[in-house]
Every structure is written in structure tokens, then in C-alpha cells.
């Protein structure tokens, strides 16, 4: 199956590690040009250097998604560098945490507005082009209880709603919008790697809930994201794809 990704231009926000980096890697292999960002200059440099081996154009520059002006300027820079944008996947997240009100603002800024600002930054160009594909990243924690009543869970849920409505609204412009909700994903330096090391019992309890007896890998989510981002998913719009190895208990009618 041809994904039709060769020569496409992808903007990835928060793609220096984990699922974001895995998406960058799959896209680069498939022949996409990529503009990526993350908070840390070093990790952006490393990611760009590593991804360049696939022979497409890969550019990167650090940006702080909490700073609207800096972030918007980065999106503009990315579109200019790539000379257009076919794919957008924003991965920004404040991660988990609860206890003070500040966690709500963090989740609002990064999980929600990190996506909103990126989408608003690319929609004019995509509309002009008459095509584009956006994949928003939620989490299985929007579907089932995980880690307590966290801002992360609640604001990720808002992406599912907003993503569907974006899809309806921009279908006419040739822009598809889909949402992917990964379950627990483990990779070196990731949250579940730390949980395995620091909260072994909790980690093992999660493992027992996994039908396949393990957590997912970033590339296993990345391939689903890339599918939805690609031409191969031309009739997928407004969908919400749960990629969790069967982890969630609910039946997705």
C-alpha cells in the first residue's frame, strides 16, 4: 500500500523524543520533509542530525509552546522552510500532575493551546493549498480513569471534541483532522520507563491489565498516526483511533 508520503511536508511539534520522534522517523523514511521543534536546543539538534540520515530535508529549532508569539513565529518559520505544509502533528503536553490549580493552566497551555495554536498556524496555508492532514494526540486516559482526576486527562479529552468539530468545519477546505489516543507507551527516558524504575508495583499492575502482557512502543503508535496523516487515509476524517494494544476496557461502538 502506497502511503503517498514521498515529498510531503510535515510539521511536528514536540518531536525530539518518544512518540513524536518515532513519527518523525517513520515520516522521514517515507520520504517526507520535516520541520520539528522541542523545548531543548540540544535535543532538537540531536533529532535533526539523526533524522537527516534518511535523505529528506529535516529542519528544527527550539520553541516554547507556552509563548504564543514565539510559537506562532516558529510555525511560520517552519512553513516557510518547508515551503508549505501537508501534515501537522502537535505532541505538546504538560504531562500528568494534580494538586494545585497551576496544573490546569499548564495542561491548558501545552496540551490544549499547544495544539490549537499549531492548527491555527497551518490552516490558512492548508486551505490555500486545498489539502492538508492534521492528527491530534489525545490519550486513553480520556476514555477511562487513570491516575486520578487530572487536568491532563480532562484537557486531552477536549482535543477529541475539538478535533471532530475541526474535521467537520474544514472538510470543505480539503483538510482532514483525526485524533489518535495511545495507551501506555514505554521508551527510554519516557514516563513509563521512570514508573517501571520508581513504582514497580504500579507498573506491574498495568502490565497485568495489558491483554498482550506488555506496554506499547512509540513506533507502534507512530505507524497509526502516520497512516492517518497519509493519503492512504483519505477517507478518514473526524475519526478517533485508539491505539492501545487492547488496554482500555470499554467497547468502542
Amino acid at each position, binding site marked *: 500500500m502506497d502511503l503517498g508520503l514521498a515529498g510531503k511536508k510535515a510539521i511536528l511539534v514536540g518531536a525530539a*523524543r518518544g512518540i513524536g520522534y518515532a513519527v518523525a522517523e517513520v515520516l522521514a523514511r517515507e520520504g517526507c520533509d520535516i520541520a520539528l521543534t522541542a*523545548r*531543548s536546543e540540544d535535543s532538537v539538534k540531536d533529532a535533526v542530525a539523526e533524522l537527516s540520515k534518511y535523505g529528506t530535508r529535516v529542519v528544527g529549532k527550539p520553541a516554547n509552546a*507556552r509563548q504564543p508569539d514565539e510559537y506562532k513565529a516558529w510555525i511560520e518559520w517552519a512553513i516557510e522552510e518547508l515551503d508549505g505544509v501537508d501534515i501537522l502533528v502537535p505532541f505538546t503536553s504538560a*504531562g*500528568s*500532575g494534580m*494538586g*494545585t490549580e*497551576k*496544573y490546569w493552566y*499548564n495542561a491548558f497551555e501545552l496540551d490544549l493551546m499547544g495544539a490549537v495554536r499549531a492548527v491555527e498556524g497551518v490552516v490558512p496555508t492548508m486551505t490555500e493549498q486545498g489539502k492538508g492532514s492534521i492528527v491530534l494526540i489525545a490519550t486513553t486516559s480520556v476514555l477511562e480513569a487513570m491516575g486520578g482526576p487530572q487536568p491532563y486527562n480532562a484537557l486531552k479529552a477536549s482535543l477529541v471534541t475539538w478535533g471532530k468539530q475541526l474535521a467537520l468545519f474544514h472538510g470543505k477546505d480539503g483538510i482532514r483532522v483525526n485524533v489518535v489516543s495511545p495507551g501506555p507507551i514505554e521508551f*527510554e*527516558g*519516557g*514516563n513509563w*520507563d*521512570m514508573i517501571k*524504575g*520508581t*513504582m*514497580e508495583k504500579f507498573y506491574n499492575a498495568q502490565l497485568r491489565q495489558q491483554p498482550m502482557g506488555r506496554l506499547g512502543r512509540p513506533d507502534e503508535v507512530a505507524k497509526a498516526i502516520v497512516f492517518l496523516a497519509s493519503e492512504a487515509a483519505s477517507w478518514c476524517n473526524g475519526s478517533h483511533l485508539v491505539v492501545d494494544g487492547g488496554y482500555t476496557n470499554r467497547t468502542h461502538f
Partner: protein
Amino acid sequence: MKRHVMGWDAAAMDVKRVVDVPRVDPETTGNGTPVEKAPDPELGTALIPAERYYSPEFMKLEWERVWTKVWLLGGRSDDIREPGDYICTDIGKESVLIVRQVDGSVRCFPNVCLHRGNRLRPEGRGNAENFKCMYHHWTYGLDGKLEHIPDICTFFQGGPPGMTATPLPCVEWNSFVWFSLDPEVEPFDDFIAPMRQHLEPYHPERMAWKRDITVEWDCNWKTSVDAFNETYHVQGIHPQLKWYLDDINVQIDCYGKHSRYLIPFAAISPRVAMPSQIPPAIHEIMVNAGMDPAEYEGRVSDIRRDVQLFKREHGAEQGKDYSELNDDQLTDDYHYLIFPNISVNVHADDIMLFRQRPHASDPNKMYYDIWMFELVPEGEEWPERVRHQRFRHGDKTIGQVLDQDAFNLPTVQQGMQSDHFPGLWIGDQELRIRHFHSALDDYIYGPGKKQPGDI
């Protein structure tokens, strides 16, 4: 043969990252705790004979040449505030009474009646007007002098010499009481040097009891001392601490018979990848410092330094006077071994001290005293003294990290007695173990007099 060069190459170890830990400049510490790296002693690479951990003969030598010769930690000054307050503490087959006098001084004497040898008091704390033996009511004053012998006229030979219990050396230092079983012991200042300058800046007198526990462990006291004398075991039995401290960039300093290591806390071990989220234990460090981790916008790798800066800025308003401590001390673990048996983790806000005592007769048993103290912020009420708890290993949890240490030790003790285990195969990360045993050798065999074949 290649010459042994002490130390380690952090990049060549089982690490994922090479980390350069910022450390306080030794030039800036003034009269505070010294931070200079002490030159490493050349102690060779020989085995440490296993026999010394279980041999009754070696245990006897330790009793004669160490326990009855050194200064020993007896308790806390704030447990004997009022005249007549006393601490009764055991060491090996001996037991002593440490008593606050009417003039405010402290005295120490054996906890034994000179009549028929009965113990005057059970181990513990209390207040007494005098110490009356429960057997025949011989009565001793707070100073150990015999005040009354019932029917003394029936003792043709009179009372025991001087009508007094043997006075034992006793001093108070840095909120703790120390004693010695040796009336001729060296001056305390000579014994404790250079720990005054190292430990006084922490002001333990501003800290109150948090935990007071004695656990009977099935291992030799040195098995326990060794366990706390190296950071190499973190990657083995404390995997969770890799998201709490840096077990690679550890500074070891040996001083005479005492030693220490400095471990960066609120740091991520180079053995694991740098996480993007704040690990739970470091989150707790930040909360305890008064920071809101949700507000933190720096990188996880910057937290240690930012906690230091935050505590420096906000300590005073929290009633915590850090003025005599350097910045590293605001986060890091400065861990000392005060020879022979005190392992103490000192921190700006708390002290976690382990007193490791030999069993009276069995080299395969010991008593592990956990003494924890917490800084009482200025203006806050001094908390009630915690109750002393005593139990056998395994009966109760003593916290995740210490449980991990404790559960390992009985099997170490058993394994060391194997005919196929000649001795401890010690690496450079365990230099303090080698140094401790070398200091012990000096007491047992005389300085530098240990011979090949000696255990």
C-alpha cells in the same frame, strides 16, 4: 602488573549519559563544612577476610580493642534536659547510665550494682532522684556515688572502693552525648577530629526526634556498616533511587578513621535516561522546599540547582537558617561514617543516623538503631518526643529504601560464612569500606601491624 589508580571513569561505567555535576567551589565555603576532595589513601586491592564477620575470636578482639577503647554515641542531649534525666544504653555485654547532673553537666557510669551485679535500670530513658537496685536496695546518687547500703554495718569490709560506681568519660557534642568504656580514652576532640568542622554547621540541636527505632538484625555489625558505606549498591537494590540521586558522581573523602561521601540529590542517575517529567521523589523534594513543581518550567536536570537557589532565598522566611551551609548541602546527602559504628546522612532539614551495635555474644547478630531528626522551623513548637520502638527484622517495615537494605543483609551474612567465600572483593566505588576496615585493623592489630594471614 598495571598499577592501581584509585577512582573511576564515569563514562566507562554502566551509564547512559555522562553528567557534569556542578559543585560548590571549595574557596567559598569559609568556616563551613569542608568540600575539598581529600586525597585518596592507597589501600591496595586485597580481599577483606570474610572471617572477621563471623569469627567469635575476632568478635572478642573487637570487644577488647575497639568497643572498650573508643568513644561511643550514647544518645541525645535533649533527652536529658532536667537534672535526674537519664539515658540507659547497652553496648555489647555492657550497659551504661548517662545522667544529667544538678549542675547541668552529664556523667556516665556502668549500669550495674556493685553488690551482686544486678542491672540498675532497663535500657531506655527516664528521670530518677537516685538509682536504687531492685535486689537489695543499694542506692546510687545521680553522680554514681553510693548513697545508701542497707545494713552497711553487716559488711565487715565496708562499702566498695570510694563508695562509687566507676566514672566513665562522657561528653556532649553537637546535641549528642558520647561516652567511653575506657577511663583512659583519648580526648574526645582528638577522636572526633575533623568532624566538628564538618557537622556543626548543620546545627542538629535545632532538630527534633522524628523516628527512634531499634531493629535486631541477623548480621554482623560490620555487614551493616559496609552496606551504608558505598553507593555501588544503589543500582542493585535501590533501582528507584536512580530517579532521585546521582550514584556515579559521588565524592569520597577519607579522614583518619572517619570518612564520608557526597551524593548529589534531586538528580537523575547517569545510569538512566533523563526523564521529561519530574520524578515523584524529586517532586517531593521540591514540595518540601516550598516550591510548586507545577510552576517549575526548567528542565529536570536543573532542579537540583534550582532547589538550592530556592532554599537559599526562602529559607529564612520559613524559619530555617541555612546560613552556615553551602548550596550543595541544601540538596545533597553528605554521608559520614564516624568510626566505628555511626553512619549518618546529614541534610539541611534532617538527619538520618544509624547506630550499629554488636550483639553481646553472637557475631551473626547486631542492633540497628535508626535515629531520625527533623529541623524545627524557628517559632514552631518543639514536637513531642517520638516513642522508641524495638522489633526484630521483618516484623515491621522501616521504609522502602531501608527495607531494601535490611532484607539483603541476612543473606549476605549467611553467604559470607561459606567455605567458598574467602573475603570481600572490593572495588573503588567501595573505597570507604576498605578504609573502614583499615582503620579497624589499626585498632585490632596496632597501626600498620596487620600481618598477612591475620583476619
